[in-house]
């Protein structure tokens, strides 16, 4: 009888409706999330699996001590955040909210107020780049030239496309491949003989032109469409370039690739097998391109890119030819990638299609995002750190797991610091404004007037 009474009592009925089941309480839900995180962490740090016994890795992870350590850690974090209190979470929360508390941001504020310091830093960085590599071991010199410098160059190119024009290009390394194959073709290293054998320096403009044409041909039909179509079309283009490189044996040499690509030479000097001459060549190319691109960023073209990125509709309404400028960014990015391809091909002297897999496109994208879209120091830092990190990780974790950590890093980065390590101030503000519902911060939305 008493149950009936309570149901009839309006206050009790309202309380019944408001009551949340124990498993739906936020605190319990957060515990569940942390437990899941602990389990994933256990799998991440477990042993390598093998195909003879697919349960091997799971079994060892979930019966060993790892499970308890990881889950315990997750529960401990949960407990500290929930119970130990306001003080800890408030301190952490305000540090994150302020954003200024991070040392990187403090340094940047200092540099902004002290232009002389900024130039001093640039000069110091350049001097370091010129002389410090002599102290490195041979292995690290190779890493520096073959990977850091090459990928920094690629990242600078992709930064134009994604950081300034706000277009997602997932096939960037395809243009790198086009550049490398151009170099091999025009120096006579492919099965097909070129009409004239060119010096490597002369190949650069030819490769730039080839990539420019390829970029325009690919971009022209797709840049008029919705922005995210570009992502898939570039991904598909990459796959096509890779398959052609691998299968057109008569022209590209197939999976054997191209070999004995001549070294750069000018006025009787030849860039031999030494690493440092190539390092200086790459540094020169990078510095020249940075100067050109910084000038471009502050020119009419750069302002048009900014306008398209921030609000495509408004830009078009103000007379910016959005398709033309997007195409321009796409083509400039592609040709930078082509230059990198020529230098890389000649430095390594031998390459095959496996140097241009889709993974590499994603890696370059990760460098730009990690460093900070739209900021040249940012992408240089991003490329340097993310190339260096896997090389160091080689000593600590299984080499084949490195990209798993990289993927996790990308996700965490996007959730907690989408602007990257060293973002451009403008980009940072745009992201913040977009979160408040003002503008776009990318050119991914429906284009204006481009629809049929």
């Amino acid at each position, binding site marked *: 009888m008493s149950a009936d009474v309570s149901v009839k009592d309006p206050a009790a009925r309202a309380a019944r409706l408001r009551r949340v089941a124990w498993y739906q309480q936020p605190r319990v839900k957060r515990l569940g999330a942390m437990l899941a995180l602990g389990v994933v962490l256990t799998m991440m740090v477990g042993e390598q699996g093998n195909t003879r016994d697919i349960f091997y890795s799971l079994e060892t992870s979930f019966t060993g001590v790892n499970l308890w350590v990881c889950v315990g850690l997750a529960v401990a974090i949960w407990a500290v955040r929930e119970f130990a209190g306001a003080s800890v979470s408030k301190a952490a929360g305000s540090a994150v909210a302020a954003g200024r508390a991070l040392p990187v941001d403090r340094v940047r504020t200092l540099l902004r107020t002290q232009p002389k310091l900024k130039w001093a830093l640039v000069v110091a960085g350049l001097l370091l780049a010129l002389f410090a590599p002599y102290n490195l071991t041979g292995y690290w010199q190779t890493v520096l030239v073959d990977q850091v410098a090459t990928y920094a160059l690629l990242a600078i190119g992709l930064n134009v496309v994604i950081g300034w024009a706000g277009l997602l290009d997932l096939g960037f390394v395809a243009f790198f491949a086009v550049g490398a194959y151009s170099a091999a073709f025009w120096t006579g290293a492919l099965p097909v003989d070129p009409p004239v054998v060119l010096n490597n320096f002369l190949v650069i403009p030819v490769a730039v032109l080839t990539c420019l044409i390829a970029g325009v041909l690919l971009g022209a039909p797709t840049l008029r469409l919705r922005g995210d179509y570009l992502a898939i079309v570039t991904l598909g283009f990459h796959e096509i370039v890779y398959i052609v490189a691998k299968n057109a044996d008569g022209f590209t040499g197939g999976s054997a690739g191209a070999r004995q690509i001549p070294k750069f030479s000018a006025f009787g000097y030849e860039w031999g097998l030494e690493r440092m001459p190539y390092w200086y060549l790459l540094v020169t190319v990078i510095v020249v391109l940075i100067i050109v691109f910084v000038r471009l960023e502050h020119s009419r073209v750069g302002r048009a890119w900014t306008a398209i990125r921030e609000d495509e509709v408004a830009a078009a309404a103000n007379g910016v030819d959005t398709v033309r400028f997007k195409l321009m960014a796409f083509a400039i990015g592609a040709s930078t990638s082509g230059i990198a391809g020529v230098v890389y091909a000649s430095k390594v002297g031998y390459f095959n299609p496996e140097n241009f897999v889709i993974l590499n496109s994603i890696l370059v*994208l990760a460098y730009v995002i990690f460093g900070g879209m739209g900021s040249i120091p940012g992408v240089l830092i991003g490329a340097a750190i993310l190339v260096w990190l896997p090389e160091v990780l080689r000593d600590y974790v299984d080499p084949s797991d490195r990209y798993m950590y990289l993927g*996790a890093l990308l996700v965490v980065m996007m959730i907690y610091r989408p602007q990257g390590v060293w973002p451009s101030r403008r980009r940072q503000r745009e992201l913040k404004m977009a979160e408040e519902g003002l503008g776009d911060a990318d050119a991914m*939305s429906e284009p204006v007037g481009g629809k049929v």
Partner: protein
Amino acid sequence: MSLNEFWDYLVLGVVLGSIYAVIAIGYTLVYGVLQLINFAHSEVFMLGAYGGLISLTIIAPGDSPSALASVGYVALGLAAGGLFGAVTAYGLEKVAYRPLRRRGAPRLIFLITAIGASFFLYNLAGKLFGRDPLPMPDAYENKKVFTLFGADLNVTQLLLLGAAVVMMIGLDLMVNRTKLGSGIRAVSQDAEVAGLMGVDIDKVISRTFVIGGVLGGAAGYLYGTFTQVKFDMGFIPGITAFAAAVVGGIGNIRGAMLGGMMLGVVETLTVPVFGGEWRHVGAFVVLIGVLMFRPTGILGERVGRTA
């Protein structure tokens, strides 16, 4: 190519196309409610294949199971694939999409998060289960059932086609007839207004991911019986199915089915004409061609929507 060969390849193409169609539905559903490409959907597919593989390895069907047992094993494989796919898709939405959606992050950020998640998942699968391809344990004897226009149809082909068609019909009914289906349609037409009308947007989005995940995971199991299971098996079917969704008109479920069938047939017919190594090129050429002449896809018609 003789006529017999043509029918053989056509049957193969339709079978492959039905798998692409089921995966493409996952892309198109998520695109409908979020206006975003779920780049990690290919990993949902891949983990579904591992789900089927794991369950069938535990149960271990014998060499020649009876007909009834075969049905049970296949159902188990499909269910396990669907479960793995659903859990993966649900987790993805929670971890990679919801925090960004709360903050109203730009679309670029979503795409990059999804790429990161995809990268993480397939490398994790490679670590857990080894990086070499594995055959799916046989749940039935793969023999010839009947001959159609000179093309032999075997059990695998009929199973793939039948399961895919059943899933597509079921999904179509669900979207058009149930309450959740009308919620999904409401959110894809206008999320804000749907919210004002009392639709719980978060719940609808989360369930949309789960539905796409079930279909993707089950398709993963089917594809695994057709070929092999490998940690990076999701990539090519994933981008082909995405291309299929775009070709059919993204956001349009029947368009995704049509596009999937079309790309499957094109891809398979590329093999006898140009050679097996060119098969993945065909789909992208079709994609670029369709986008040039019909930017909203074959069945895509909602031109006025700002996305």
